[in-house]
């Protein structure tokens, strides 16, 4: 499941999934910009059939935070 998340992130940001880890953030991945972050959110919502709250999305600073928020929505990654 971890892999699935990494896969989606790697697809949206168009980078090798090997470059993705829990600490990946806009600071260390230049492909992560403010727009494709929203694209990523949209893909995750569609993929897992969930809806994030606006304030949840504002808390996400790195890949690990995605895991947290998905867990909150019952998606175990």
């Amino acid at each position, binding site marked *: 499941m971890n892999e699935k998340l990494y896969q989606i992130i790697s*697809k949206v940001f168009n980078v090798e999934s090997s470059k993705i880890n829990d600490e990946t953030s806009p600071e260390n991945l230049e492909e992560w910009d403010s727009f494709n972050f929203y694209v990523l959110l*949209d*893909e995750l919502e569609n993929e897992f059939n969930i809806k994030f709250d606006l304030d949840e999305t504002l808390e996400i600073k790195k890949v690990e935070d995605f895991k947290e928020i998905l867990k909150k929505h019952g998606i175990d990654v």
Partner: protein
Amino acid sequence: MGKNENLSYFLNEAKNIKTDNFEKKIRIAILGSSTINGYEETIRVKCHQKKIACRTYNSNYNQYNQEILKKDSKFYEFKPDITFLILDVRHVLGEIFFTPYSLSELEKKEFVKNKVREITNLIKTIINHSKSHVIFSDLQIPTYSPYGINEQKQEFGLKQIVKNINEKIKLEIKNEDLVSILDFNEFIQKYGEENIFNYKQYFSGDMKISIEFIPKFIDELMKFVNAITGSTKKCIVLDLDNTLWGGVIGEDGFDKIKLGDDPIGRSFVEFQKRLLALNQRGIILAINSKNNFDDAIKVINEHPNMILRRENFSSIKINWNDKVSNLREISKELNIGIDSLVFFDDDQINREFVKNQLSDILVVDLPTDSSIYPKILTELNVFELIKITDEDLKRRDMYSQQQERNEFKNEVGDFNEFLKKMDIEIKIKKADNFSISRISQLTLKTNQFNLTTKRYKENEIELFSKDENKIVECAEVKDKFGDNGITGAYIVEKKENEWIIDTFLLSCRIIGRGIEDSMLSEIIEKARKQNVKIIKGKFIPTQKNKPAKNFYENFGFSLEEDFWVFNTDNTINKPEHIKVIKNE
């Protein structure tokens, strides 16, 4: 075609596009009042899929005003061919969007007037400072009014304000050939604000179209891109059994096929009605069906619920030949390229065979459910024209006449005899307001008999027509079977001692009747009168213009370096069977 791919697909594909070497090229600018990230990547990819080389320019967030009003802006520097101006209704209305009450009736009218002036001023500024087409996406009518159900009884409610702005802009730009309007409300109606507008994305990044629906919105933009680049399809080729009616005529018989009267039959009737509508607008229809001719044609002629009749089809191939041969024949018979055809067939094997053999044809992937056919046809979006000319509306008739001509030809037997009996008459006319858009359309769409294949937009033709050093003329062709409309054109550049033929073209369906020779004779006679001795022209070969390859040579031109040259003292090989009327 990747039509259903989501935005991240387009964002990534956009990075993979190498410099395109396609013949069709387009420069697209997108100016928006909200966030328009992702639009340009998607449009580049969609153009690439259509074999159009596309460069794009994006205005900075909400900088459209400055970009348009400053003549030295990056926008003008980009030299767009098409500019999309996408303004959001909230942005245009400001606080009025929420509290229309704060204005009196008079103030509301003043407000509408000002907004219309502002926006049309922007549009006209672009036209004056560039050669770009401008596509204005009209304002979304709000789906909610604080007046509630009373909105409809208000003298001048919130929705009425927006409707008025839209209507008035439409009137203001009516006569601007370079300006078109994208019906944004149709887009909303189709997919629903519930889906298109995402509050979270709106509050997060002022996105007015949700990420999920950006590719669908770009499809709306692509209609204009297709039309302006001349990528429009001309002819729909249709299978019969389970495509135009339910069931198989050879098995079920005349009385048992499904057409009207039951759910399946109603879906085919609806499909035919939509085809008829396109046909009446100038899209040619043809039949390509494996059937006994007599069985099938009886349905077309006599079935009480048939909507399309024999006269709607410009070419009918009902036989046991393979579908590809039939398509080739249809293309030849109608004198239009394979890439101008759209093929509808319910049989997947036929479809794959055709795709495989004729890569340029558009083969529509029909679902097994016939109730979806009308929707599929409506959503193809490949029949768009930036301007529907009289010729488009007449085309259907012209092709029916063509059929009669062919039959007459077979009757007469000898070709020269046939030509003499055709009573061909050509009217040569200077380009004017009535013909400019048609001449541009001809340069954009003519591939086969086109000596230089230079593509000119309407504003360019207009410019040429006002240039004293250029001749821009067109030929209107008639014969005993009817009017072909404007089907030929040329552009000549007049230098002091020689004239250079910049463009010379003829609609393919009238090639080979001597019309091209009459037109060229006309140019030479004109030069002679003005004591010009030398006429020069180039033949620029493309994949498609072989029919024109030997034209200059056959007429008596000789090759000197890059040019074919003719001395006007020589005898002119003018066809005798054609009457030429000058209309200067």
